[in-house]
């Protein structure tokens, strides 16, 4: 990340300084403001979902969910703690019902529990790749956008999208298995 980010920033900053030096600082401040606004939105979204999840936890529903997903989780992530399994199960469930934003806080918690070292372990890599391949099966945002652009058939893309998602997911899981073998 360091190499990519630094290279892009240096190249772009040089290009902006040559063509339009006055805009550089305002661009930085603008990005900061954007990030602040987005963070505020995230506080609200995470608050809702962490609140809901905490209620689910106190009814022992998360444990039950983790039990159902236990086989799958052991296959994917190897031996991980029960607490991490609970968070991962929440992450999977949120992704499947299509609330990607709810998936993030549980993933952060799960990764916090799995990673104690400076080198990424199999569990963290697997959870990241599964989420970064777009586990969300039904593309609600895209279908909504197509409808608002008065498409003849907004959900025409549903089947190819699901095929694509599943294909990349399988490929991702396979590649993680190769790159981070089970211990």
């Amino acid at each position, binding site marked *: *990340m360091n190499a990519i*980010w630094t290279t*892009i*920033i240096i*190249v*772009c900053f040089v*290009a*902006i300084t040559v*063509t339009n030096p006055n805009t550089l600082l305002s661009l*930085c401040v*603008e*990005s900061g403001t954007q*990030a602040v606004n*987005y*963070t505020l939105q*995230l506080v609200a*979204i995470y608050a809702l979902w*962490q*609140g*809901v999840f*905490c*209620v*689910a*936890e*106190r*009814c022992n529903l998360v444990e039950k969910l983790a039990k159902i997903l236990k086989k799958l989780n052991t296959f994917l992530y190897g031996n991980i703690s029960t607490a991490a399994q609970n968070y991962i199960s929440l992450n999977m469930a949120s992704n499947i019902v299509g609330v990607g934003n709810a998936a*993030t*806080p549980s993933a*952060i918690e799960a990764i*916090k529990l799995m990673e104690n070292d*400076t*080198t*990424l372990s199999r569990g963290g890599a697997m*959870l*990241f*790749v599964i*989420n970064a*391949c*777009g586990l969300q099966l039904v*593309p*609600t*945002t*895209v279908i909504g*956008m*197509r409808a608002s*652009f*008065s498409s003849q058939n907004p959900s*025409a*893309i549903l089947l190819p*999208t*699901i095929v*694509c*998602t599943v*294909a*990349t*997911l399988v490929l*991702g899981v396979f*590649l*993680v298995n190769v*790159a981070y073998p089970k211990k």
Partner: protein
Amino acid sequence: MMSYLVPILIILLFVYASVKRVNVYDGFVGGAKQSVPTAVAVFPYLFATFLMVNALKASGVDRFIVDIISPPFALIGIPKEVLKLLLIRPFSGSGSLAILTDVYQTYGVDSYIGNCASVIMGSSETVFYVSAVYFSQTKVKRLGWAVPIALFCNLVGGVLACILCRFV
């Protein structure tokens, strides 16, 4: 159909918790409290990512990159407009939504390019954003192959999307 799913799940959960004599209010507030530290920890990573995306756009470097790499991608069946989406997608969700809107306006939502862009948008993820956010609270410095794997999968997804859309 889908729009009922999440609301109903939340209602069922609260009813179930009440039946089980769990204090819903306390639980909800207790969970919600944790959102502030989580979001604040994510903030610097968001800032860095937004800065990079905005700098790419403002400097015109993004168009330059697209121009250079579009010929080889055209060979594997990816149109130039779609390539732009494929490139921005790993960095920014809002940025890629803007490109998607652009594609719909320029080519029409039901065109081949419109369909391709839709499928790519629906089946891919903001890889760099996810990696920044997910590892924001760990000591992990060396991610190994995780990010390249995710990027490669999204690229394969993009190529597959363009192939599949020929049959829609």
